[in-house]
């Protein structure tokens, strides 16, 4: 076997096995390629497709050559599976193999291979023998087991047969027994029938006396039941004289019974359930339902009207009116409870009346219900101005909850809908009330601010700062809004019975609270602020600028943060989708109308006089050229850059535009010598005081420089003032 593998040439063969190397070279010479051929170039042709299988098949060879697995893997050239000289291959041809050996191998190698093969054949033989011995015992024991199983199954089969015959015998016996008993069974049944009939007859004969006894005892229900049971039979056997007599007796008693019942019903004092019982019995006695129905409702009406009257009395001015919760409680237990009982009894009693009866009841309920609602609304209207939402909501909840039962009983009367409507109306009115409250609070805040601003300042004592006022206003408005939201939120609380109505889930939250209350309030705030801005117009008005400033800041805060905060708050509380109406915002942020004294807070920690550069152009004659050259090097001042909404930026913008305007005005004038000097002094003074208000004082410098330069240019006789004099003048002031 080994020499066969030597047909794969590989220079990587270890040199310690010279015969292998020789074999390899011989093979290489036979195949033809030059000795320099690359490792892996297999003379046998292309590599096989299944290296995995080949590796396994040649495991033994590898073992023989002492090649490690890795080394073998690194030598991809393996014998072709179709190679007839491959001992382990499927297509092994001994003739070809021998021929090849004989041709290719030297004698020594042939000898070696022969001994090797003999040794291997022996090994294989002994292996086979061991395998046969080992497995023989297992075959024997398997045969024994199978034989045993065969015996056991035969026994089981016998048992099963016996079971089947026994079952057949049992069935046979059972059939015979039932046949024997059949006769007696029929006779017993007949006897039982006769017995029942006799008992019935006995009942009939005893009926008149029983009825009389029942009526005497007042057990009307029992009497009516007996009568009902006997009625049909007596009717049927009318032609038999004995039965006839019984029937007549019964009819007399029944008539008396009916009369008594009617009496009791008319007296009516005994309450709705008993009345209902009377009516039920009367109906069972075959009294005309129509009439009973009318009478029943009339009685109910009397009772309910009494309830309404007592409610109305509670409304009235004379006795101190109970609070709204108590009122709805009374209404709920008295009127609504009564109505419920009536409706339930009526529906039970007069179910046979069909749609006409139901319609009558619905009309009845509608009429009384509307009177009740009118009373409730009157009471609620008294509540409208009041402050306590929780009591109102609880009262509404009671009211609504109590009406659910009659609403379900009497869907046609529309009580529940009407109740919901009332609740909705009240909710809407509450929203309006809160909006008014918020507006009033806002206006109150503004009035306070105005007063604070207008209050004469006590010397030495600083009045409340604008920032403080603003904070006060903002916090007070916010707390008002929060209080309103909390109050209104009670309407949507989960335990409140009407909170799951579609109105309270959707419209109340989105339209009512969000749009109507919150956005409406913000709008009215904007309008108020706008009207403050508009009213003075160009002619100047009463609105103090500080108030405008405060409002502008307030609006700005609202625009940037507060509105979104409030709306988010509302949305969170009222389960509205955020973003549905989010573009809503402050439409106009008023530009601030500021005055310097507002910012007296701005303390000047920096030492003044630090800035005292001279404003005097060194060579006035060349100012034009100079300024042009200066401009080349200085950055262009963007006077009109956009303004951010903060104090410094706004002030910087105002100062820039003011100085620009000053510049334009200076350029339109012609100055005398002293005019120029005045401008010099003015600009220096401005410089001393303006820097603290701007973001970049360089801007002020440049613009003031330009003003002075322009003034010098506009002066035919430019004799500037000495810088030291300018300073002295400014510091004296």
């Amino acid at each position, binding site marked *: 076997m080994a020499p066969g593998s030597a047909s794969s040439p590989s220079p990587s063969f270890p040199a310690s096995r010279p015969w292998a190397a020789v074999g390899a070279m011989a093979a290489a010479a036979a195949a033809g390629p030059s000795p320099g051929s690359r490792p892996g170039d297999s003379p046998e042709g292309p590599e096989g497709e299944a290296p995995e299988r080949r590796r396994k098949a040649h495991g033994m060879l590898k073992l023989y050559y002492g090649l490690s697995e890795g080394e073998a893997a690194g030598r991809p050239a393996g014998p072709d599976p179709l190679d007839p000289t491959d001992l382990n291959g499927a297509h092994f041809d001994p003739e070809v193999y021998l021929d090849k050996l004989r041709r290719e191998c030297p004698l020594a190698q042939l000898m070696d291979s022969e001994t090797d093969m003999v040794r291997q054949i022996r090994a294989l033989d002994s292996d086979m023998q061991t395998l046969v011995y080992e497995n023989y015992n297992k075959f024997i024991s398997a045969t024994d087991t199978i034989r045993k199983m065969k015996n056991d199954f035969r026994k089981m089969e016998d048992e099963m047969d016996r079971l089947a015959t026994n079952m057949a015998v049992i069935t046979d016996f059972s059939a015979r027994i039932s046949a024997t008993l059949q006769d007696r069974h029929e006779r017993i049944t007949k006897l039982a029938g006769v017995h029942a009939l006799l008992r019935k007859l006995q009942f009939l004969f005893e009926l008149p006396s029983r009825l009389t006894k029942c009526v005497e005892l007042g057990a009307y229900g029992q009497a009516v039941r007996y009568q009902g049971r006997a009625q049909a039979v007596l009717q049927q056997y009318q032609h038999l004289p004995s039965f006839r007599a019984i029937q007549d007796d019964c009819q007399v008693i029944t008539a008396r019974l009916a009369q008594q019942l009617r009496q009791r019903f008319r007296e009516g004092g005994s309450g709705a359930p008993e009345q209902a019982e009377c009516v039920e019995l009367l109906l069972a006695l075959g009294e005309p339902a129509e009439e009973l129905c009318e009478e029943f409702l009339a009685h109910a009406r009397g009772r309910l009207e009494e309830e309404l009257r007592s409610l109305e009395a509670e409304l009235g001015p004379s006795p101190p009116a109970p609070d709204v919760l108590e009122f709805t409680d009374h209404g709920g237990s008295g009127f609504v409870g009564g109505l419920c009982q009536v409706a339930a009894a009526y529906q039970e009693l007069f179910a046979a009346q069909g749609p006409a009866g139901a319609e009558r009841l619905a009309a009845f309920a509608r009429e009384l219900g509307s009177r009740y609602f009118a009373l409730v609304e009157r009471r609620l209207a008294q509540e409208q101005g009041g402050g306590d939402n929780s009591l109102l909501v609880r009262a509404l909840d009671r009211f609504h909850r109590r009406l659910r039962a009659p609403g379900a009983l009497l869907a046609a009367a529309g009580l529940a809908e009407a109740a919901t409507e009332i609740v909705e109306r009240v909710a809407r009115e509450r929203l309006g009330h809160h909006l008014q409250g918020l507006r009033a609070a806002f206006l109150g805040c503004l009035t306070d601010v105005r007063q604070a601003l207008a209050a004469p300042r006590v010397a030495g004592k600083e009045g409340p700062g604008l920032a403080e006022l603003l904070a006060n206003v903002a916090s007070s408005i916010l707390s008002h809004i929060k209080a309103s939201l909390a109050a209104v939120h009670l309407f949507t609380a989960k335990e409140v019975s009407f909170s799951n109505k579609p109105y309270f889930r959707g419209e109340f939250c989105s339209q009512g609270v969000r749009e109507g209350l919150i956005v409406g309030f913000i709008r009215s705030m904007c309008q108020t602020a706008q009207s403050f801005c508009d009213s003075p117009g*160009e002619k100047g008005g009463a609105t103090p600028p500080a108030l405008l400033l405060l409002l502008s800041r307030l609006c700005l805060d609202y625009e940037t943060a507060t509105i979104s905060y409030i709306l988010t708050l509302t949305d969170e509380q009222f389960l509205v989708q955020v973003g549905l109406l989010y573009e809503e915002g402050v439409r106009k942020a008023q530009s601030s109308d500021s005055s310097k004294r507002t910012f007296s807070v701005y303390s000047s920690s920096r030492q003044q006089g630090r800035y005292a550069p001279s404003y005097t152009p060194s060579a006035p*004659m060349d100012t*034009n*050229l100079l*300024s*042009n050259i200066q*401009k080349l090097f200085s950055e*262009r001042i963007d*006077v*009109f850059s956009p303004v951010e909404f903060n104090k410094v930026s706004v002030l910087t913008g105002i100062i820039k*535009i003011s100085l*620009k305007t000053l510049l*334009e005005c200076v*350029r339109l004038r*012609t100055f*005398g010598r002293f005019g120029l000097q005045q401008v010099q002094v003015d600009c220096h003074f401005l410089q001393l005081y303006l820097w603290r208000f701007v973001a970049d004082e360089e801007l002020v410098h440049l613009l003031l420089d330009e003003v002075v330069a322009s003034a010098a*240019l*506009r*002066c*035919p006789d430019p004799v500037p003032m000495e810088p030291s004099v300018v300073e002295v003048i400014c510091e004296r002031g």
Partner: protein
Amino acid sequence: CFPDTVLIYTLSTARALTPQTAETDAIRFLVGTQSLKYDNQIHIIDFDDENNIINKNVLLHQAGEIWHISASPADRGVLATCYNRTSDSKVLTCAAVWRMPKELESGSHESPDDSSSTAQTLELLCHLDNTAHSNMACVVWEPMGDGKKIISLADNHILLWDLQESSSQAVLASSASLGGKGQLKFTSGRWSPHHNCTQVATANDTTLRGWDTRSMSQIYCIENAHGQLVRDLDFNPNKQYYLASCGDDCKVKFWDTRNVTEPVKTLEEHSHWVWNVRYNHSHDQLVLTGSSDSRVILSNMVSISSEPFGHLVDDDDISDQEDHRSEEKSKEPLQDNVIATYEEHEDSVYAVDWSSADPWLFASLSYDGRLVINRVPRALKYHILL
């Protein structure tokens, strides 16, 4: 192709600019300087459009610093200036009509560079003088006439002059004045090219007024036309009732003088006082404004122009196809927009004007003496023309 922008420096402060109105072939602007210390000059700027060459001639204007300049519509050599005269620490603004040397009328192109030494002087024709009225704000020529009628605005007076004996004598033909409280002062005025040149519009404070020059009576009045001072106005050359105004409220407003309560349109593009507004002489959708925010803005006011649907072909010579096309064109909504904002100036722009010869060319002048000549963007030009 040449760049669309050309810069020139006069190296002296200046606020007065006018095209040479009577010149219809060459592009020529007159710039008056404003200096208290030096002799003032009028620069005649010639722009050779084809070669992109600028030629400058200088005329001495020794009377004083020039605040306003306007050229005669009939005679290329005649112009009027408003200038300051200082005497005994008092400043007077006067107006005069001048004639420039003959050889400069059409811009002598072999101008020597040492212009200062050979600077020529203007010939004084006449003073628009009236001892009663000082502080001439501006002088405007009758736009279509023979250059014999001129209006000057002095304080609260509007004065109509007749120039006689080849302009050597100015006779006050008629005048009117503003009555009312306070110091009323005209700031600007324009002569309407419509109605046989019988209308003049003036601006004082925040009010615009129209005058009939025949009777010197007021014909309309737009009170509070702007929130602040009105700086300038101009008539639409093609729509007789339309005029534009601008002012210190940073706005440009367009008016129909038949309805003075509301502006037809308002532009708010500038961020500081708007000093000048000018309609293009041929294509009245092009409106030029200059402002002390150092910007010049060219706007396209198509919707209120005489060609609101673009340039339409005459009905007479359109074939069916063209008819179809023009219909299509007219359906396109044309939007008013800002065509361009020119930021070449570094100081306040006090004067802008269109060339009288080339409708696609305009000049702007800033206080530092920088004159910028710009062209209307080519794309827009072709859009308007084609």
